[in-house]
């Protein structure tokens, strides 16, 4: 009875006979809620941490990828320019070869003419000896 009156007044006793303003059940539920909230907050924090970590990892990965990409582009350009360089080098070498060829041709002409002169002289000597 007394309990009921007390309840009307909004007062309750719990198991430990302490006076309370909340219904024990409600109090119980509140406590549970509080616990659950706490758990929830903890979980959220953990999630945040994980997400942050994940983002960080992704970021580093992206920079790494970017770097690699640049490298790849560089390499590709290098290869391209290399072939250009080769071409230029080849051209230079071809020019040098052409020059050498011309020189060789000059020397060949000279050699041939000297050869002819040599033959002429031998012929002359032979004739000279025969005439004597």
């Amino acid at each position, binding site marked *: 009875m007394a309990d009921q009156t007390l309840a009307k007044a909004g007062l309750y006793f719990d198991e430990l006979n302490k006076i309370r303003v909340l219904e024990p059940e409600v109090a119980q539920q509140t406590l549970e809620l509080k616990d659950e909230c706490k758990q929830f907050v903890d979980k959220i924090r953990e999630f945040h941490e994980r997400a942050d970590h994940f983002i960080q990892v992704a970021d580093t990965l992206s920079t790494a990828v970017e770097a690699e990409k640049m490298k790849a582009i560089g390499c590709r350009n290098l290869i391209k320019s290399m072939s250009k360089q080769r071409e*230029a080098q080849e*051209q*230079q070498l071809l*020019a*040098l070869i052409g*020059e050498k060829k*011309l020189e060789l*041709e*000059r*020397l*060949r*002409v*000279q050699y041939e*003419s*000297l050869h*002819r*002169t040599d033959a*002429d*002289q031998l012929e*002359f000597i032979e004739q000279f000896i025969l*005439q004597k």
Partner: protein
Amino acid sequence: MRFKTTLLDRPKHSELVSCVGWMSPDEVFSCGDDHKLLCWNLLSNETVVVSEFPANTFPLELHWLPKTSLHKTKGTADVFLLTAADGKFYIVGSNGRVEKVVDGHRGAVLAGRWSHDGAGLVTAGEDGLVKIWSRSGMLRSTLAQASTPVYGAAWSPDSDAVLYTAGTSIIIKPLTPNSKPIQWKGHDGVILKVAWNPNTGLILSGGEDTRYRVWDSYGRQLYSSTLHHHPITSLAWSPDGQVFAVGSFNTLRLCDKAGWCHSLEKPSTGSIFNLAWSGDGTQVAGACGNGHVILAHVIENHLEWKNYEATVTSRTSIALRDVTNEAWEKLELRDRIIKLSLSHGYMVIVTSSQGYIYSTRNWNTPFIFELKESNVSLIVQAERHFLLVDGGSVFVYSYDGRVLCSPRWPGMRTDVLNGHTVSLSNDTLAIRDKTDEKLVHLFDASTGKGLNDGKPWSHKLEIVQVALDQVGTPNDRRMAIVDRNRDLLLLALQRVGAMGRAVKLGGMVQSLCWNDGANMLAALQDAKFTVWFYPAVVFVDRDLLPLTTTEKDAAEFGKNAAVDRFLDTQITVRRSDGSLVTTSVSPYPALLHNYVTTKHFDDAVRLARFVKEDTVWACLAAMATAHRELGTAEVSYSAIDAADKVHNIHHIQEIPVKEARMAEMALMAGHVGDAEVLLVQSGLIFRAVMLNLTTYNFERALQLAVKHRTHVDTVVAFRQRYLARFNKAETSKLFTQYQKQVEVDWDKINEKIEMEYQKEREKPTTSASQNFTDS
């Protein structure tokens, strides 16, 4: 020949280098888009910043005031001309201080050159104007106005005309007002650079069609290069005009004046925007697009003479090879080699401070002599001495290093002398004048005294080449000249008194060379190759000229070939592509020359009999006639079936008086004047009169007769007979006068003539001249 190039690891300029110039043989100035003026000392390998130009000054061309002009106007310091993209040009001292700034053009001043005498300068700009300025930068005239930017300009050899470019054309405009310019299309692309050598008169051009071309001063193309990969950005003649350098992207070429390429270098320079030769012609500096300054010096200069070969292996060393015994010598010199020459058994080397004379017999101990000036531009060797030409004088040295003489002449200019305009023999030096190209100065080589009464010998046309024969006595010295019409003429040089006229030997001569051991002449004539075995035949008997020459088709030498050497029986011809072609001639004429110069006519006849060639006989006939050897001449003439000559010789042999025989010989050679002088001098007046009568020179005969008061009636009689035969009336006043004074009686005249001959027969041969001098 090739370039040995030096490039630093890192460029000294931070931007492209646009221009270079040599202050001295060891110092180069360079200037570029980083506005810095750098001085490169090649001895200490140091580079210093001389000065810095304002940031809006982008230099384009740099040209030092020519050193030769400093001789004349002493006291003027070294300055250079710098043109810039802001339309100004600067005259800058060697310390980098700007002495004068002149606002020259609208738009960039693309080219600027001092005239060769240093009296003025020409600038050409983007606005298409070509302007002439005084030495101090005062505007003299605007020479030309083109519709396109003028990229290049150059002075003519005499500084009396300017060559400039307009798009694809080359234009030569004389400075004299209202004179007509010469213009021709030079390239298919825009012409970027031109150069004109004062020594050879050859013009170089190069442009965006990636070719370079060589022209003569009339605009005839002598050479056109093959295509390059990039435009030709720079060109420069060496001071002596024998070689030139060509620059392009990563390309540096050394080319012969004929156009063919000595060597090709591919340095990593970027485009070479400007090239400049050092004053001694041994080094080149190039302004490179990547901020470098490339320095190159010419090495592997190769010389050959008989069995010796000399090659410059580095700046200071020469490798020598005797091909007969494969002996190698290495000559190390103290200073940089500037010029060398190998001929007549001696090698003359000129370094920057001394001259060395090596004999081929002894390579160990040269004669060393000090130079008056290091800028030696030419060495000409003869058998007994050699000639050195430097910036201001001409010296004849003996082979032991003594100066024999240093001839001078009015209007002397030595920087334009080359192997074509100077010729030296054992006793004579011939130099063609520059201001009047019709003149040849002749000097005695050992004393330096002028021949021809001290006056220059003059021809009626401009002379292109002079060449003296090398063998024989001074009295027989002959000079071959080629004139502007390419006619070859021969002149007999007199040691005393005035020279005669030159006699034509042939036409269309491109190039010629005397033999070193006998007076034979080889020449390239249009499409044939000719050797005159005895050129002096034209003074003796012109009819023999075709017989004493040998001709060959010159097709194997191609166009624009040049006779390089004529040693013994070997003639070397350089083709226009640079290759040397050897050809040989019969050795007999040379032998004949030797016999004749030593007066061994018996041996000469024996040789001719052995050879049995008309050429040899004809040469001998001419030589014998020239030496008044009647017997030999008779034999030779009969061998070539010249019956008339033999007959004439018989007639001469019957003449009892020696002087008369000599005169008849002279007459046979066609020298009527000489014959007459000879006769008059020896008192044979009658013969002199008869000589003039037989050559129908009546007036002269009468003059002689009247002067010596003899045979006037004979002359008149002959004249009357001549007039009667041709039904002519007397026109000469002299004869109408004397006709009245004498009476003609043919019997008496014939009697008198017979008496003269009788007298000659009775007289001892030499008494005639004595009688004359006594009376």
